[in-house]
């Protein structure tokens, strides 16, 4: 007969305010099989947990039900407490009487009645729990870091320095990400290349890191500790071993008029190119869409000049397979482009540019070698208007969130402009300045007070070109909403930070959930920011949400720490919530009739065929068998199986059946003795 202990938590006032906890405890005492039923102010506190441990020992309990918050919150806490008291942790379950009851209903008889129901349902479930023991699964101690921006670089270095193998995959020809495109970085204005390139070199030379640039993920299968990844190394048309990176080919290449992605379209590059001088690996790539050889079969000039004959026009994409234990997603972000702002004339007027393009103008390795010049006629602009929140915080444009970093880099841009063009006038139209980081506010004050940047609080309604000038129409809400009209030579839009295109397909390929804006979804906004709902896959950087460099690096180190923790043991213990095919005495041996309709339903291909043979070796029947390493416990096979031969540990047919019966049959216990 089961000896179940029920522990009802007040959670301070969170539950106690609307649910009569004493009555719930009293009511549950009446349930057959419950031998101990108490309530306490904070069950998850140490005294609370000790109450449980003592009760387990004193009443030698065979099951524990904690009526408190969501199991997604404290199930591990209480299960660990039970384990320490010698009770199998899977005999402890939680009834969610906080998020699903006390917080969402008024204080009333009905609410307490519902709380009792919810606890009673879980008591019936625990009564039918079986002790389960974690599954031991080997862990491949190699991490896959997806994305070569500063977040990816930091994560890769931390994991590699912890002594584990890392495979980094970067989509573009070189690592570095958006940070490599920046001129200086706030709030210290130190040169982005100077602090980034040493790290990039460190990645390239790190013995534990295998770098695949100009490559993408083909597929990812398996599960935590046992992923199998297929990486598609796109054909560079250059043999990386032979190429010394001398750059002769890029100079001699006749097709020079291709807008450079690295320079955000302001500068030009050749068909065979290295994105930027400090590129790692410093090996060129042939852009097959523009290269004359691939278009018309002629030229081959780069092949002729190459001192080490490293050009391979016939190179094919290759698929690299690897066993992976954990994945860090650090694929970064993008900014909103093109004709998203007709009212600002963006994409129509050459002198209306976005933040990244201004960075390239300000960057010493940029198309204008660091001088701020107008893309239209190359003249130095005397008046530049910066427009913050271009697209962000604008429900009409479908982007409601704040992109977090634009206030800071817009202040930086204005400061850089003032430094580079002394007589220039800089205006910034803003709504609110978000400068919450360390030394951030001081940086913005410096821009205003020392560099004379004029901040105008108001939104710009229209930018139009007239007689060579860009007329910026806005309002100044601090001066009584006066309409303001500025004749500017150049306008810089701080456009919204959005997810990369292709982020959705990548998330689906990695079985990771994502939000409405296609940013990857963290497991818990506050408590698990670097994990995803998929065990073994972690997040770092702006792919999770717009964030600046310090936060990306911090998150990357966090993700790396998680990976190192995972790799710290040889075997990974996995939750034993997996499916099992029943076995019984001969002559039946199992109710499974070997129809294998379940096999097609299993997303993890975890169901195999097993032949049951008699002692003399002849085949009696072929039945299904679940591979405990692959099964993730979704239970689809259990619902597809006609003969109920396969059952899910922790959510067995008997348990869920009993839960339905208990929920709908209110007993005297509810009547409240």
């Amino acid at each position, binding site marked *: 007969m089961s000896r179940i202990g029920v522990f009802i938590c007040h959670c301070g006032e969170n539950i106690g305010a609307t649910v009569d906890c004493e009555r719930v405890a009293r009511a549950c005492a009446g349930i057959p099989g419950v031998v101990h039923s108490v309530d306490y102010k904070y069950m998850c506190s140490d005294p609370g947990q000790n109450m449980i441990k003592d009760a387990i020992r004193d009443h030698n309990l065979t099951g524990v039900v904690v009526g408190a918050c969501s199991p997604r919150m404290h199930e591990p806490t209480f299960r660990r407490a039970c384990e320490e008291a010698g009770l199998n942790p899977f005999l402890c379950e939680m009834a969610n009487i906080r*998020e*699903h009851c006390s917080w969402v209903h008024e204080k009333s008889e009905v609410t307490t009645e519902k709380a009792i129901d919810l606890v009673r349902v879980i008591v019936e479930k625990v009564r039918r729990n079986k002790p389960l023991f974690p599954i031991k699964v080997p862990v491949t101690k190699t991490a896959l870091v997806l994305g070569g921006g500063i977040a990816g670089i930091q994560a890769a270095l931390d994991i590699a320095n912890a002594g584990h193998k890392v495979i980094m995959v970067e989509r573009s020809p070189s690592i570095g990400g958006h940070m490599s495109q920046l001129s200086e970085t706030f709030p210290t204005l130190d040169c982005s290349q100077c602090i980034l390139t040493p790290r990039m070199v460190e990645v390239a030379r790190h013995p534990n890191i295998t770098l695949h640039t100009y490559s993408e993920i083909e597929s990812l299968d398996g599960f935590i500790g046992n992923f199998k990844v297929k990486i598609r190394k796109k054909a560079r048309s250059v043999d990386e071993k032979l190429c010394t990176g001398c750059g002769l080919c890029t100079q001699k290449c006749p097709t020079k008029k291709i807008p450079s992605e690295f320079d955000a379209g302001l500068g030009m590059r050749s068909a065979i190119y290295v994105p930027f001088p400090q590129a790692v690996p410093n090996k060129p790539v042939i852009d097959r869409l523009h290269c004359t050889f691939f278009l018309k079969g002629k030229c081959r000039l780069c092949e002729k000049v190459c001192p080490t004959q490293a050009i391979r026009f016939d190179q094919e994409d290759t698929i690299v397979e690897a066993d992976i234990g954990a994945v860090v997603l650090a694929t970064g972000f993008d900014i909103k482009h093109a004709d998203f702002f007709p009212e600002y004339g963006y994409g129509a007027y050459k002198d209306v540019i976005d933040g990244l393009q201004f960075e390239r103008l300000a960057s010493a390795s940029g198309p204008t070698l660091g001088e701020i010049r107008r893309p239209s006629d190359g003249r130095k602009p005397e008046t530049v208007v910066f427009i913050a929140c271009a697209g962000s915080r604008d429900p009409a444009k479908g982007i409601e969130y704040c992109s977090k970093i634009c206030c800071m880099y817009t202040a930086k841009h204005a400061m850089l402009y003032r430094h580079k063009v002394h007589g220039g006038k800089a205006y910034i139209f803003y709504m609110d300045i978000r400068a919450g980081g360390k030394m951030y506010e001081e940086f913005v004050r410096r821009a205003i007070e020392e560099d004379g940047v004029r901040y105008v609080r108001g939104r710009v309604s229209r930018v139009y070109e007239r007689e060579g000038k860009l007329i910026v129409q806005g309002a100044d809400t601090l001066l009584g909403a006066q309409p303001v009209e500025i004749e500017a030579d150049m306008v810089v839009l701080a456009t919204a930070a959005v997810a990369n295109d292709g982020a959705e397909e990548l998330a689906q390929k990695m079985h990771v*959930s994502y939000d409405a804006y296609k940013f990857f979804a963290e497991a818990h906004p506050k408590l698990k920011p670097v994990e995803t709902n998929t065990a073994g896959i972690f997040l770092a950087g702006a792919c999770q949400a717009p964030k600046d460099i310090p936060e990306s690096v911090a998150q990357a180190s966090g993700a790396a720490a998680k990976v190192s923790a995972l790799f710290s043991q040889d075997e990974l213990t996995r939750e034993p919530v997996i499916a099992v095919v029943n076995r019984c005495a001969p002559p039946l041996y199992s109710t499974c009739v070997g129809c294998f309709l379940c096999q097609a339903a299993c*997303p993890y291909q975890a169901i195999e065929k097993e032949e049951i043979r008699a002692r003399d070796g002849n085949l009696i029947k072929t039945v299904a068998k679940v591979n405990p390493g692959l099964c993730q416990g979704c*239970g689809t096979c259990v619902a597809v199986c006609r003969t109920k031969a396969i059952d899910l540990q922790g959510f067995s047919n008997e348990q869920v059946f009993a839960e*339905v019966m208990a929920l709908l049959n209110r007993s005297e216990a509810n009547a409240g003795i």
Partner: protein
Amino acid sequence: MPEFEPRIVAFVCNWCTYAGADLTGTSRIKYSPNVEVIRFPCTGRIDFMLLLKAFAEGADGIIVSGCHPNDCHYTSGNFHARRRWILFRGLLDFMGIDVRRVQFSWVSAAEGAKWADVVNTTVEAVRKLGPYDNYRQIARSGGV
């Protein structure tokens, strides 16, 4: 005569709708208390027999909710569930069982407000339909 309070059981998946319902809680959005939730790892795990059991045991309405297509933590559990519900709902309707009392929905972990709305609209709809006497009558004939 006090207003009829329907009893509704909700079968939800742990990763999306249950988490969505948690979010409804953390955002303190009030909704009617007539619905009680049973947690499953995935909608793929919900056996169609459980819906029949729920009606047999006196439920007036049923909610089945899980992850949006392509969001399933197990990649395809909700797709299998959708196909199962398309067929099962058709069969129940063909046999005269009132499928207006069964509300299927996708609620993600970020849609706390939607969960409250699904609950409230289902409770109101079932309240309008009244207690499920037809089914309760044959359940009583079961000798209980």
